[in-house]
């Protein structure tokens, strides 16, 4: 009897490992393919001869990417939006989440309700567009920072963190010492909440780096385009192929194909560099959210 069961378990585990390995490969191989292509000879890429290892190793793709003024501008714009946007978002999120986490604050229930309601119902695309227009933000950098500055989800996560991990006794002691609310926030709450602030900052930073929709709506000036919008124009709309003679066309076409792979890598590397760090903290963030949800 025992032996039979162990036999079944062994077969079962083989199945589990096969399943997980398949999963692993399905996710991993496309990424490896992109990486390999980005280092390959343009002709090999165009002819579809690249599999999982670079064919005719070259950095031509990256050279072209780094020489394109449009891409460089997009990259530095995205860096700006991400740094400034994350800072603004983080400050605003703490400024609302901390007071709302304080049980003795009159009116906090009503304010929290007002905030959560915006998760359930929204004015819509055009009504929001009109607000941005009315405020004179259209075609300015602020249009990509302010309209999405606070995420309700992040406020909820921060609120539950403050409530659970800042003991009431600490606050009472600080009150006895005559410390004001702001001083308590600055010198006790924030130092104790560093992991939380890291999670939230990373969430905002990645969202900001990856977004293109607001730029599509609000920005007309190409000098202000974030990288993702530049990517969309090059990768999806296939811009930049201009009419010229046949051989030149072919060469350009090959380079354009290669460029796409290199561009994908360049746009994704910043996120992947912080990924191991993010993964650890994000899991925690998901947990806090899951407990609430």
């Amino acid at each position: 009897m025992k032996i039979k069961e162990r036999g079944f378990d062994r077969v079962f585990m083989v199945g589990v490992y096969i399943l997980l390995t398949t999963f692993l490969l399905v996710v991993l191989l496309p990424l490896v393919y992109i990486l390999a292509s980005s280092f390959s000879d343009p002709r090999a890429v165009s002819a579809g001869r690249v599999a999982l290892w670079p064919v005719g190793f070259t950095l031509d793709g990256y050279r072209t990417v780094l020489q394109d003024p449009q891409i460089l501008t997009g990259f530095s714009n995205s860096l700006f939006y991400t740094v400034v946007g994350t800072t603004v978002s983080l400050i605003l999120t703490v400024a609302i989440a901390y007071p709302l986490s304080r049980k003795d604050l009159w009116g906090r229930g009503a304010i929290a309700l007002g905030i959560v309601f915006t998760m359930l119902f929204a004015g819509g695309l055009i009504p929001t567009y009109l607000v941005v227009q009315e405020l004179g933000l259209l075609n300015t950098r602020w249009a990509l920072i302010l309209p999405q500055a606070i995420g309700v989800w992040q406020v909820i996560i921060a609120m539950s963190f403050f409530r659970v991990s800042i003991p009431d006794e600490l606050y009472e002691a600080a009150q006895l010492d005559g410390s004001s609310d702001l001083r308590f926030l600055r010198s006790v709450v924030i130092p104790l909440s560093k992991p939380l602030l890291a999670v939230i900052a990373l969430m905002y930073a990645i969202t900001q780096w990856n977004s293109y929709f607001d730029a599509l709506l609000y920005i007309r000036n190409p000098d202000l385009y974030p990288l993702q919008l530049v990517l969309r124009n090059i990768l999806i709309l296939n811009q930049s192929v201009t009419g010229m003679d046949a051989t030149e066309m072919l060469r350009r076409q090959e380079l354009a194909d290669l460029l796409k792979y290199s561009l994908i890598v360049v746009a994704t590397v910043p996120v992947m560099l912080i990924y191991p760090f993010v993964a650890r903290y994000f899991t925690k963030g998901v947990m806090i959210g899951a407990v609430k949800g």
Partner: protein
Amino acid sequence: MVTAPAPAPAQPGRGLTAPSTHKGMRAARRSLRMHWQLYLLMLAPIAYFVLFKYWPMTNAVIAFKDYNVVDGVWGSDWSGFRHFERFFDNPVFVNLLRNTFVLSAYVLLASFPIPIILALALNEVRLKFFKRTVQMVTYAPYFISTVVVVSMTILFLSPRLGLASDALAIFGIGSIDFLSEPDFFRHIYVWSDVWQTAGYSAVIYMAALSGIDPTLYEAAKVDGANRLQKIWNIDIPGILPTATVILILGVGNVMAIGFEKAFLLQNTLNMSQSEIIPTYTYRIGLLNADFSQAAAIGLFNSVINLVLLVSVHLIAKRATGRGLW
């Protein structure tokens, strides 16, 4: 050391449940006096919600008006429900509704079970290194931008460069232009979505699995249960509450499917299935500059979504004793 009683901290929620307005007013005044700094701190975030969330809600009134730039939101003439009627009478309406609904339902059906299977399988693995590698790799695509995921999809499926046509060639099938074939749009959308999010979604189930009482497994061992029986009788009941909440949330959000990805995967040839309400709203509003019509469509979608969420919440509360909020 003097331990004088602390200046009695206000009772939790006292201001909210005050029996008389008089008492409520007093609590409010006291709270304001004691915590004016906190109220001051909240001003900027509250201004944010008023400006960027509530102001748009009042602007949505243009759905009932003939908006024009000169007269502004409140100065334009009222038009009643004409923009809604125009949308409902439009021959594209039924198609849009179907596209939106079918796409979301398909996303939900595909992206619900797969993370559960992934988490259950990972939970069986005892090799730390293997487990961690699978988790790290499958989690990673979640952080790749939509633009990049769509670009990769297009590169793979393009008949000229793509791997897909090479694979078809092996079986002697001529290359297919998947991207311009309307029938493929939903599959491409859904499965690239699963590729991107399955690892991330599995994390929540992993957490639920790690919270299961270990004595249950010991009891199962004593009873001589095999692994499949353990999964069936312990793991699945253990993650059921989490799974229920996630499923309910998914159903409630079925009309709230995002604009970003569908818009990027769209082209003139696959429009008959790829045009959904959010992308149509964008087209009508910003490309055709028909603000009132677009606001009406957006409002219609928001209301349906709100109704769905609230009813799903009520049903869940009745069925499981546990709602969404």
